[in-house]
């Protein structure tokens, strides 16, 4: 072992090994190795259910600086399989900080590694694609070739219905507003719910596999399908629900995985991106207005643009300025639309919260139309 190498390592499926030292839990973990370019929000990244099963490389090199606070958790626990950073900070400084990132990850049994040349790792993934890997808190005395073997067959979130892992099991209601939104939880972040309740909605969060008739029975003004992890084709029951929804005429808003499910529901295809879109700086063009929005993104799959059915009223409403991929769908008559990015930020820009306004405006209008008709 060289003087440069720490005890810990990330071993990729293609055999490349990155060395470092351990923080967080002292154990091994398998997952898909991806990177995110967000410069702040490591805690939100850790607790974003869309990262379920992923070993996340933070491209920003100074991580842990402002500690961890329960206030910033985006769900009930962290979901990442592991975290890879250049410099981990053990002396956080922020008025809200309650503990270090390392303590937090250790408590949730998540391994992490620091001292890694994260830029080299990022370039590797950029060139070869996101891949399976193993993060090991200690490789001392272990044969790297065995670990390479394990990395090749490591579990990855695309292998199973990971939505089922992260979704709530029981219904839960938030907010007091008069607009009733049912939120199909495929891995929702707290700020999606908060963004709706702040705007006067009461939100009923239901498990991902809630059938449409049960949702309809809640008599919602509109339905939102949340972001979530993994391959949309693996989302099972959630897809069936969305299919039924589109036909029902209920206002529907799909976010991220919810957007991909809408795509599948209307007959489009989805495919895996080489290394995904993960970060807080992704420019998206709204094709109707020509305006550009900076968005937070976290997805490994996309709706294929050329598979969106033509002649049925569907349009690609938003595209990524970076690679032209589909960032939003909209129907020209039905109150159905979706965005691939994360309007709730957390982490990331708050510029796109206006889409929640738009969604609730639709709900409000229909509600008042209905009430008007009733009189």
């Amino acid at each position, binding site marked *: 072992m060289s*003087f*440069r190498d720490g005890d810990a390592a990330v071993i990729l499926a293609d055999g490349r090994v*990155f060395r470092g030292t351990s923080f967080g839990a002292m154990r091994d973990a398998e997952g898909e190795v991806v*990177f995110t*370019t*967000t*410069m*702040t*929000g490591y*805690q*939100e990244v850790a607790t974003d259910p869309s990262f379920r099963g992923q070993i996340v490389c933070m*491209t*920003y*090199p*100074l991580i842990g*600086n*402002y500690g961890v*606070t329960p206030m*910033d958790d985006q769900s009930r626990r962290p979901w990442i399989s592991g975290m890879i950073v*250049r*410099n981990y*900070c053990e*002396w*956080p*400084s*922020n*008025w*809200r900080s309650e503990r270090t990132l390392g303590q937090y990850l250790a408590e949730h049994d998540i391994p992490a590694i620091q001292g890694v*040349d*994260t*830029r*080299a790792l*990022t*370039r590797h993934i*950029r060139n070869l694609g996101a891949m399976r890997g193993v993060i090991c808190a200690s490789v001392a005395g272990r044969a790297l070739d065995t670990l390479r073997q394990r990395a090749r067959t490591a579990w990855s979130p695309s292998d199973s219905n990971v939505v089922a892992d992260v979704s709530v099991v029981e219904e839960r209601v938030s907010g007091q507003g008069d607009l009733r939104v049912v939120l199909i939880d495929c891995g929702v972040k707290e700020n999606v719910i908060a963004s709706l309740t702040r705007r006067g909605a009461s939100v009923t969060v239901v498990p991902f596999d809630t059938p449409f008739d049960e949702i309809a029975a809640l008599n919602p003004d509109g339905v939102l399908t949340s972001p979530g992890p993994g391959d949309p084709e693996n989302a099972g029951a959630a897809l069936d629900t969305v299919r039924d929804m589109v036909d029902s005429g209920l206002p529907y808003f799909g976010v991220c995985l919810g957007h991909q499910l809408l795509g599948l529901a209307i007959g489009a295809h989805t495919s895996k991106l080489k290394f995904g879109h993960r*970060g*807080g*700086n*992704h*420019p998206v*063009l709204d094709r109707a207005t*020509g*305006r*550009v929005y*900076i968005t937070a993104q976290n997805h490994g799959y996309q709706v294929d643009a050329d598979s969106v059915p033509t002649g049925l009223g569907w349009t690609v409403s938003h595209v990524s*300025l*970076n690679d032209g991929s589909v960032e939003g769908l909209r129907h020209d008559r039905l109150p159905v639309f979706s965005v691939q990015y994360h309007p709730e*930020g*957390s*982490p*990331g*820009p*708050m*510029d796109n919260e206006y889409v929640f306004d738009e969604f609730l405006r639709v709900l409000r209008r229909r509600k008042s139309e209905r009430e008007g008709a009733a009189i």
Partner: protein
Amino acid sequence: MSARAKRVLVIGSGPIVIGQAAEFDYAGTQACRALREEGIETILINSNPATIMTDEDVADVVYVEPLTPDVLRRVIMRERPDGLLPTLGGQTALNLAVRLAELGILERYGVRLLGTPLSAIQQAEDRQLFKELLQEIGEPVIESAIVHSIAEARAFAATTALPLIVRPAYTLGGTGGGIARTPEELDEITASGLAASPIHQALVERSLLGWKEIEYEVIRDGVDNAITVCNMENIDPMGVHTGDSIVVAPSQTLSDREYQMLRTSALKIIRALGIEGGCNVQYALDPHSFSYFVIEVNPRVSRSSALASKATGYPIARVAAKIAVGKRLDQIRNTVTEQTTAAFEPALDYCVVKIPRWPFDKFRRADRSLGTQMKATGEVMAIDRSFSAALQKAVRSLETDAHDLLWEDPVWVDPERLEHDVRVASDLRLWALATSLRRGAPDAEIARQSNIDPWFIREIGRIVDMERRLASEPIDDSLLWQAKRMGFSDDQIGALAGVDSAGIRERRYALDITPVYKMVDTCAAEFEAATPYYYSTYDEEDEAAPLEGGKAVVIGSGPIRIGQGIEFDYCSVQAAHALDAAGSHSIMINSNPETVSTDFDTSDRLYFESLDAESVGEILRHEGGGCLHTVPVILQFGGQTAINLAGPLTSRGVPVMGSSVDTIDLAEDRERFEAFLTRIGVPQPPGTAVTTLEGALDAASRLGYPILVRPSYVLGGRAMEVVHSAEYLAQYLASSVDFRTGHPILIDRYLEGKEVEVDAICDGEQVLIPGVMEHIERAGVHSGDSFAVYPGVNLYSSEVERIVEYTTRIALELGVIGLVNIQYVIHSARIYVLEVNPRASRTVPFLSKATGLPIIEIATRAMLGESLRSQGYEPGLWPRQPLVAVKAPVFSMAKLRGVEVNLGPEMKSTGEAMGIDNEFAPAFYKALLASGLAMSARSSILVSLADRDKPESLPMLSHLVRMGCDVYATEGTAQMIQDNGMPVQMVTKRIGRGSPDMLDVILNGVVQGVINTPGPASKEVLDGFQIRRAAVEKGIPCITSIDTAMAVVEAMRLSTGAYSVQPLPSYRNRVSVGY
């Protein structure tokens, strides 16, 4: 939207002063190039010749003229631009554009203001309007009041608590502002603030001392797309001007909630203002809650935006220029990735640290404490993958006596002095923090005393912890690797471990511990990028494979400081262009984020690195594929910084292009140089080197007073003085010189006379002399602070011939290849050599502009082996141009309390302006206009002269009187004027003991100019000091040399109002006149 502009006028920022430096050359140059890409013709005006933007190939039409409304009106009449871009030339250009609009000139000639509308500029700049806007959009503003008088300030103070901050409206670098802790201070600072504000308005507000200061750089286009380029966190909390703060990018202690909260606010503000282009929003953030206040918005590109551009790779000025002519963000290509557009936000995967460079090494008497008035002349930036490494690199880049954080001020043996320097922000605070930690003070205590976030304190603490390990543990391989990763230099490690730094280096090489170079790509490696912009780090993977083919490294000049300004950046950029034109790859190394040289478009490859021997050596070795003997380095253009590398690099076998290290040494080594001049038969003033006080006094009496004294180990005139008596010599040596260092003191006979300066290019066989410049001030005033005139107007042709002959002889005999600068004095009709510098001098850009000769290109080609003849140049003096060009020094004295204004052999100016015309008088007058020294006829002038200057001054005084000036004079001078039958009003020198005293007439605005030449007596020096300070703080011209005064009055007499305004080349293209 109205028709697209086709001809656009771009206003530069004028001379370099504190608060307005090279960043606007960078911005303006980028803007002109961006507009050219759009097929738009550009007309550029700037009075500063030492800028790349005034090169004739950057804009389509170039004016080097004073930046006044009158000149601008004439430029507009002549060029008829349809657009004006006012937001790229700093506060100077912005104020001028506002003035032109107010005067109706823009409307009359159909010139549209491009980009940010005038209303937005006014709303952002006017404190009251800005406050109202913020309240309207629900953004928090600090309790404050706009005041126009001391009474109004007092009234506001009664409603809130001290301390209060006073910020004058429309000034640069916060001139005249300050923090008032007592009612008395409030009166005093309000008075100076109102005086400094052109609209006599100041903002008095609640002080947020101790809050975090955070900045966002924001860009918006004409269809309301808006992005943030980056944010920055000041390590120094609120209370220190952001230009004087140590800054880190991106923020380090903000959670995503806080980051996005302020980002959202910044976008809201740029939209509410309706800015089309870039702006900068500054915030105060409570370290204990989500509370924040908006401090300030700059509705233009700024020093911060230059820093943000270099920190992220996002070219803000370029994008702002394109937005100004109607492009949307998503229509502008991202030149870094070549794959994406300007509509995105950079993601950094490194940490950037900026440290200001202050002039206190030159101004030892200045008040070093830092507050709301900026005092730094320049800054350095460093990039690395950890904060500690970036910080330590930045410290090395400062090029001060403190090479690293190990430096301690001897006064800190006293713990109280140390604590004071931790508490009170000054240029030394960073070292005081490290010293305190080294002595075991707890982090929390230091954080409390300094109000600096504990995160930064702990980071410095980790550096100190590593120092301890290096000093106490055996340096094993792993420890060495860790220390390098934290940014420790070989010198530092060697010093701590008690071994030679070369040994550390060899050890590293044996272990293959060398830096890798990573790319600044705006996207954290998410996309493949094309940018050739790199920084070093100790990590696994290198991304900068050595450039193939012929190449040479140009060493830049580091931070802007007194004596080493933007001129050398100009030279470095020109050298890179010359290399490219000659078919060689150019590689630039520099540490200054403000400059054109660190624009990644300037060279084929940019390494943003410290300019110390280790950093430069590693790059040369890297580019040489592990060998130091293959890649040549150019040291002639980076000022003293680069020249200082000649020895260390040569000793390691690096090929230095042009003059050899022996040539450099010959010119710098006193004894060798003396012998050399004697051998080649060129006279120099008699002098000697001494190492004791007795020796000095002996030598002085032998040579005869006055004498010129200076320590041998510094250049650029530091601690140099003209001494008239033995008494003063003893005093000077006691206060300025430490004989124990063993460095000799140089004592020369001071020869009073005309000073002449020459720049020359030598190819080894022949010498081309672009021009001979005459100084207005006689020898004794530092050449950098002198007015220089091209061509010499008072020189006999025999003198010029002799100077050309000496210059040729010296250059050839010295073995110069490339540039040499020689200063002469003509004393009693004899010509003596004062100084020879075998490198580019600060007059090169001025002389290039005046003569039209591409001096740097010719010199670079000569260094590459192309003879002058083969380049098409005949040896000897380049034909005299049919014009007169005057270089005026520009000072920033008003910003530096406690600094003596009087000129001497030590350089004090921060910048220069050029006046060019067909004759001397209008050229000189324009130089005065451009440098802020012009006085109008019929003004009131206070004159107080040294006895030795009195006889010479009579013609000047009678001109003043005849022009209708009211002359005020102190006792002796008044007597002399009266005796000569001229009217004069006497004021007393005895301040406070007679009415009016000389301070009264200045401070009450009775006089509009001061001519004060100090005499030798120390009492008089003190009185004079007060009136000179009063004049600069009042913002009126203050002339301290009788030569300058006579020239100024002559120019007033001959030319007021009657000067030409035409494009720079037009002056040269007149029918040639004989020599």
